[in-house]
């Protein structure tokens, strides 16, 4: 007998025709699922900094931390606009957006990106990193920011914030 995986990979049946399901498909689907859970596809994160500020030390460190946490980072870097971030999120099908903020611009920039995401019909969580006073965190999370990371956050905290932002997404959406 050939393996179910063999069938899965060679199947050329029109899969959209769900009324015609060979039993082996069901079998291999569950097998596939277990293989996938062992080997989850990487989380894709778009990393960018909005506005004019040129401090990218934190952004670069976070990029490496996420890579080392097995994620794929689409690095946009400095001086991005809401438009360029949205375009990247759409084309790259990013799971999470990571934005670096430094010059106390978070209260102006965060609503802008969230509005742009809504306008584009994108339901992608946003994690902010940078110098954000504790008293502003509640304001940011209320407006829809998933998490806020401070300078000095550990690699584990950074990765957990990104994973956590996905966990909060409604399942099956």
């Amino acid at each position, binding site marked *: 007998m050939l393996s*179910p*995986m063999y069938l899965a990979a060679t*199947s*050329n049946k029109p899969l*959209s025709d769900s009324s015609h399901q060979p039993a082996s498909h069901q079998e291999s689907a569950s097998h596939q699922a277990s293989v996938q859970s062992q080997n989850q596809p*990487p989380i894709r994160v778009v990393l960018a900094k909005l506005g004019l500020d040129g401090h990218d030390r934190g952004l670069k460190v976070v990029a490496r931390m996420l890579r080392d946490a097995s994620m794929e980072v*689409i690095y946009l870097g400095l001086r991005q606009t809401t438009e360029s971030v949205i375009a990247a999120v759409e084309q790259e099908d990013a799971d999470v957006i990571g934005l670096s903020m430094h010059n106390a611009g978070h209260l102006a920039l965060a609503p802008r990106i969230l509005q742009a995401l809504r306008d584009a019909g994108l339901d992608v969580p946003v994690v902010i990193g940078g110098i954000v006073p504790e008293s502003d965190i509640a304001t940011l999370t209320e407006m829809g920011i998933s998490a806020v990371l401070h300078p000095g956050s550990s690699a584990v905290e950074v990765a957990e914030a990104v994973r956590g932002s996905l966990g909060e997404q409604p399942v099956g959406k």
Partner: protein
Amino acid sequence: MNQLEGRSSTADLLEQAINGKRRAQGQLLTLIERGGFAADEVTELLHHYTQSRAHNSTLAGARCHAAVVGFTGAPGCGKSTLVGCLVAKITQEAGVGRSPAVLAVDPSSPLTGGAILGDRIRMEENVPAARSDGTDRTANAAVGGGAFIRSMATRGHAGGLALAVPAALRLFEACGYGPLIVETAGVGQVEVDVTRTADTTVVIVAPGMGDAVQANKSGLLEVADVLVVNKSDRPGAEDARRDLEHMLDLGHMTGLTGQWRPKVIMTTATEGTGADQVINAVQAHREHLEHAGQLEARREARIHQEVRDRVSQCLETAAEYHLGTKPDPLAAALKERITPAAAAAAISQHLLASDMPA
């Protein structure tokens, strides 16, 4: 990750994608990249769509194929900057209906499987067309215009990438993009293989980095249809050009490169110099292929290769599955009662004797 779609919604996604919805195009690419059932389903649906479009079309021979151009070269040669420059030129100058799509392939970390994909941003850099009118990246074609850029990590398995790239290109084509560009770091067999999916392959070297020699050694010169010396404002650019021409001369003498002799073009991508010549050379190569009847041959070779890749992947999967069940010959080999070769022969025989699915 986001929104693992059920069957019907894949069809919905495809419909949206074909109607130009970039979000859907991006999501379908994710399914393709992930492989397995969902990817096969996308490919299947795409096939039906293209078939019916060709059937319904009033134009004869409507099954046109978008040109596929591969760009490869060692890290640091300015490949992404050059691609970005060409994309901007094509989008801005070719008039209506020309929206290039780019697949930018970068290696995953072998240690963690993660990746930092920086090609996208490099493509948006130094685009001279966007400079001259005093605007900048917000007005850049690569971001806001008709072009579509997708970054793809190798994810550690050459086979998966080899399957995903042709499928992604088919999706781009169905969605009306063209020309299609595949960009890979010119290191290793994976890249050379992926480059083979193109009608025209552009190999880029930079002066003074030993790129030309390296490209020759790694077999890249053999697949090159157009050669570019980028950063040609640097010292050593002329030497690099001469080296390439010299190696081409040798290649010609051994008959390696066939009838087409690749042009060597000098560019400075950061200034936009030479971009037009690259576009013209790619065009000329495509015309050459058409006249020589090789376009069809290349297309067939590609499909042949893809089928072969799929077959080997299946065999590999089957072998792994089978070995995982520890059949008797394996057990015997482990105890050194029979040789590994004998065990393999026995297992293979068993595998190949199995019923093939109808």
